């Protein structure tokens, strides 16, 4: 009886030792690993919008469009469609290439995987999963058209 309970005691003590040592090792190395991962992952910045004057309303008759550059110099299209004024980004929603605004065909065409969008940014054909991104447009009392753009 006594021998067995002594054995048990030693076993329990040994077991606890292992658990504590193991937990300590995992915590120690784990902390190190989590710092390494944080170092490698880029810091997230909050998106900041900026208002930019891009056109005057007189330049945009119904169904008219105007191309302009966003804050990083990328082409965007301002469209005056039935749904109102819209600023459409030309970054293809499939895999991020730049779609072209083909004024003759009234469509956006992405050369990477043959994606086609209509004047409102809606997908016409090809693999893109959703319409082109559009940005809010504001018109002030002097018919100036502003677009709220993401700062690059």
């Amino acid at each position, binding site marked *: 009886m006594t021998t067995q309970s002594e054995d048990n005691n030693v076993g329990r003590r040994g077991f606890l030792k292992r658990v504590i040592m193991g937990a300590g090792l995992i915590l120690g190395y784990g902390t190190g690993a989590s710092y390494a991962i944080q170092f490698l992952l880029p810091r997230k910045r909050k998106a900041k919008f900026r208002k930019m004057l891009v056109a005057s309303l007189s330049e945009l008759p119904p169904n008219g469009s105007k191309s302009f550059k966003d804050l990083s110099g990328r082409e965007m299209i301002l469209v005056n469609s039935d749904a109102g004024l819209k600023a459409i980004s030309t970054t293809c929603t*499939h895999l991020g290439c730049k779609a072209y605004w083909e004024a003759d065909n009234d469509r956006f065409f992405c*050369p990477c995987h043959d994606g086609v969008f209509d004047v409102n940014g809606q997908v016409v054909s*090809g*693999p893109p999963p959703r319409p082109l991104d559009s940005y809010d447009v504001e018109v002030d009392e002097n018919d100036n058209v502003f677009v709220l753009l993401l700062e690059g």
Partner: protein
Amino acid sequence: MQRVAAFKQWFADSFPFDPNLLKEISSEPIPNHLKRWWYAIGGTPLYLFVIQATTGIILTFYYVPDPAEAYNSVMHITTQVRFGWFLRSIHKWSAHLMVMAVMLHVIRVFFTAAYRKPRELNWMFGVGLLMVTLGFGFTGYSLIYEQISYWAAVVGTNVAEATPLVGGLLADFIRGGPEVGDNTLTRFFVLHIGVLPTVMVLLLAMHVVQIRLHGVTHLRHEGEDTPSVELSVRVSAPVSPVRPQGGEAAAVQEEERVKEESYPFFPDHFYTELIVGLSLTFLLTILALIYPAHMGDPANPLVTPEHIKPEWFFYATFRWLKLTSFQVGVVGTMVFLGILLFWPFIDRALVRRWPGRDVSFWLGVIGFLGFLIFTVWEAMV
């Protein structure tokens, strides 16, 4: 003389290595069919990897991994540095040949079913090596920072982003930000010259050790009832592979059989590899001279070129992405890679379900032809 002997003794004491062990390790009996090069094509990527490492290190002396300078530094290597154009061209062509050789090796191993038990794990190491090779190709041509480099990086990292569950983290990690930018080139550079080479050397070591432990697969043809005895030896075992039961005569007979069906790795197969290596060097030189690597337009994040294509080894994926919806395109690519990785186990299930029907063979034919057709299709348009 005494000094020499003393030095020898000192060296033996300081580096206690038994030369006989080296002899034993290098006397692996190689089955006769490996005298045909298409069975020995796994050695080719290894040789090309050494060329890549050598030329790559030399190119790094001049390359500048900075978005503003990268293109100019590659231009400088190509037009100013002595033999720069040549080394860059060798590096490029060797990369193409390496991808091709790895693919041919995969096809050979697949159609001789050499991935079957007990070599499943080594097939998986092999698929890992294929992916690392493609990773080298992808990061490599992005470093030049010409138009194709930039847009391939955009598309490639967006594909990674679409990975279920971990996509966002993965893409952020590779790009170093929400989109391809200043951090991305540095990361591609580190992957290309630091991370991938390390992973490749480790995987290669595992791959070769496994081949050595299992022995080279012995071909068995249809109609052969008695499976030939494996010619393999364990590193620790003596060269004669099978311990025959039946006395001296049987032992001699067994030794004769091994001699007849195989030849030693060193020096015979080693010489073969040397000759293959020299031929490859010759071929690379010719390719570099006739088709030297040139430069496209510098990367412009504002404009995607109207005609854009990745390197040929991504043609099939590229075509697939054009033909299918976003989800099917990206997830389908990953499913394909998953099937490739776990193929030995899928094959086992197929054999169990339809014994003797060669389902795996025909699936392989379909998969391979599909890849070939998509590649050629993309190349033609």
